[in-house]
């Protein structure tokens, strides 16, 4: 097609069209990208806490943090006194919350299944807005943790909190629970950079790990991690991120209910058994096609196979 200079090209028209959008805040984009990138890297490395390269602190600092760090106690008290719980963003006109748990079939843990499972497991008075400016729904479907060799699925999205930004809720279900303890958490996080408490919930071990704002990224967010090791041997992991612990949208009791929801046990059972047992994985390699999801694969030394990973 010849181009008449007096006629606008489609490129011109598109260029003109984007002028209706305000330029984004690239600093905010960068902060969100770092959070998301650390989340991906955390799962890839199997570390207890992402991004912590801080020097070890002193035992005295740790003692202070354990004593002084905020916890979910405030939120639990508010919920038990009748305050609204798990406030969420008004749903989009097209939003339809699942009213029944998704059907779980081995080998068919799709992105929709894991996302629907989390929506189903959240408190019934909550509604999940899909993308709300923080994290949209992001899904890792059936990938291998190259450190632990276990298969897992993961999803994350944002629900509204009492603070100015929403709470990012990320959930992953691991086929095989890992031998994490508060000691390994503190070793990975760096003493003084967080608190960890261990308790028993529904017959399984629960680690509740709080990393104060400013430790993991430059955005001032606080991170709270929950790792629940089921009596039957799988692991559910929830990560909450918000401006402060007080703003986190889920109470401790609500988070416990998510962690122990039976739907995640069904998902764990449907995941394959650990990969590359007895072997080691190569460093991640890019997939054959740029942009292929997942972005990386790892090769097993014992069976020579490529496995999807992050």
């Amino acid at each position: 097609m010849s181009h008449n200079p007096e006629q606008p090209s489609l490129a011109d028209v598109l260029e003109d069209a984007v002028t209706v959008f305000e330029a984004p805040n690239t600093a905010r984009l960068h902060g969100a990208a770092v959070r998301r990138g650390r989340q991906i890297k955390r799962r890839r490395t199997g570390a207890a806490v992402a991004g912590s390269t801080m020097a070890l602190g002193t035992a005295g600092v740790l003692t202070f943090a354990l004593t002084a760090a905020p916890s979910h106690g405030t939120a639990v008290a508010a919920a038990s006194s009748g305050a609204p719980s798990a406030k969420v963003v008004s749903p989009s006109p097209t939003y339809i919350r699942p009213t029944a748990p998704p059907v779980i079939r081995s080998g068919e843990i799709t992105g929709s299944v894991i996302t629907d499972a989390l929506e189903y497991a959240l408190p019934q008075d909550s509604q999940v807005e899909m993308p709300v400016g923080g994290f949209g729904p992001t899904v890792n479907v059936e990938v291998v943790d190259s450190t632990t060799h276990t298969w897992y699925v993961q999803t994350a999205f944002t629900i509204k909190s009492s603070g100015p930004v929403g709470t990012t809720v990320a959930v992953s279900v691991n086929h095989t629970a890992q031998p994490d303890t508060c000691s390994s958490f503190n070793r990975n996080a760096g003493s003084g950079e967080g608190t960890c408490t261990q308790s028993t919930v529904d017959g399984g071990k629960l680690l509740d790990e709080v990393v104060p704002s400013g430790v993991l990224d430059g955005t001032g967010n606080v991170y709270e991690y929950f790792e629940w090791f089921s009596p039957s041997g799988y692991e559910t992991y929830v990560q909450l991120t918000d401006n402060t612990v007080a703003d986190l949208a889920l109470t401790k009791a609500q988070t416990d209910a998510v962690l122990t929801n039976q739907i995640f046990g069904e998902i764990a059972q449907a995941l394959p058994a650990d990969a590359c047992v007895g072997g080691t994985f190569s460093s991640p390699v890019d997939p054959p096609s740029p942009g292929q999801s997942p972005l990386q694969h790892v090769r097993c030394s014992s069976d020579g196979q490529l496995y999807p990973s992050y």
Partner: protein
Amino acid sequence: MSKPAAAPTVAPMAAEVEDFQDFVAARGTQLYYTACLLTAGDTHLAEDLVQETFGRMYAVWGRRRRIDNPVGYAQTVLVNTFITLRRKRSSREQPVAEVRDPPGGVGDGDSDLRLTLLAALSRLTPQDRAVIVLRYWEDRSVEETATALKLSSGVVRSRSGRALARLRDQLGADFPEFTAS
């Protein structure tokens, strides 16, 4: 199986962090505009897509030398994330007849024309929209677009032609003569 005794280094080195920050600062706006066109004006979804794209790049940034063309790589991740997301969400979404008003509202004729274009884009399939955006906004060749979308060149040409025809039909009197080149 046990975890490494030492904490793994999971963050890029300081210089790489600055490098990544510079990359986001330099490319963030363009990538966001691309996402706005892909989503036909859904700025929330556009921002999510860009954050996901940069997040995935951050996760591999220390190995970025294996990414020959970071700009193209980001575009490819963006469009594929968009298409994948639309597939996942399609079962719970309903067609959108009108695009939402952008920040600042509308009122003048030029704005109306821009919104008409965005509305026309929203009526294309996600893959057709991706073809149009890559070919005519990102100025990628047919072959590059085919590689990014994992389609054949012939399919890209046919989709491009069909999408352009639909755009012309819908834009009608507003852009009666725009050319594709």
